[in-house]
């Protein structure tokens, strides 16, 4: 099935990952949206645990999603992940990027400590990198295009703190 460019169903991607019990953390645009950023995104970025068994499960989930490399080359998950920092895939449910070690982090084990489970409906509750880690990743990329989202993340961090302080005062 050819993935149409306008298709984006993040829940379908996350459900496929959940069905095969893949361990991963959501990062990137969708992660920022889940935290409250008011941007639009066309795909989902994940940082998987790179254990052998988890990559096997991830491979099964990618089969379910009919995932193929955006550059048209044959997908060989484990080898591709070693060779490429970001593996860009097209799936029936939209774009999926698999990132081994996002800039400014040391990968899954680093991000999972501050990640939180966020309920997205349909039984989907992915681990999402923290606001602080999202800001750290964008700052490390140091790209002009990320200035606005980074500013928004910093603003969200301040608002979250303000709300948390408010809640503790109310108690």
């Amino acid at each position, binding site marked *: 099935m050819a993935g149409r460019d306008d298709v984006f169903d993040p829940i379908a991607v996350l459900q496929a990952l959940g069905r095969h019990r893949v361990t991963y953390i959501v990062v990137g645009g969708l992660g920022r949206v889940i935290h409250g950023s008011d941007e*639009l995104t066309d795909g989902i970025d994940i940082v998987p645990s790179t254990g052998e068994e988890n990559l096997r499960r991830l491979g099964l989930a990618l089969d379910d999603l009919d995932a193929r490399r955006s550059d048209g080359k044959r997908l060989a998950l484990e080898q591709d992940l070693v060779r490429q920092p970001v593996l860009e895939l097209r799936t029936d449910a939209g774009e999926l990027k698999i990132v081994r070690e996002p800039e400014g982090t040391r990968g899954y084990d680093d991000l999972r400590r501050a990640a939180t489970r966020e309920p997205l409906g349909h039984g989907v509750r992915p681990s999402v990198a923290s606001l602080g880690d999202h800001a*750290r990743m964008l700052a490390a990329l140091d790209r002009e295009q990320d200035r606005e989202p980074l500013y928004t993340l910093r603003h969200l961090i301040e608002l979250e703190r303000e*709300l948390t302080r408010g809640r503790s005062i109310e108690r």
Partner: protein
Amino acid sequence: MRFTATPARIEPVTSGTLIREARLRAGLSQGELSERSGKDRAQIARWERDVVQPSFETLRDLVRACRFDLELALVPYEADRQQDTRLRKTLERSPQERVQAMLRARRR
């Protein structure tokens, strides 16, 4: 030597970004900063990730351990009110509603 964050890149700044930038500019690992400052390495990592926030005095000690200093001044503050209002509304929604709203906006 004074330490000034680069506002265009990391505005608005957090204590975590200040500590991290000072440490990286000084060419120190978190372990080395821990030795210099006498603070726990794991705690430094938490501060850098903005998981928890150090006191102002601790922040200054850490930056000084990197051979920098904080240059502070009180200036009038004007919030980005439009964005502030927008983000406050978004935060009232659940994560599920935020994703649904984004997908709806994307289809428009």
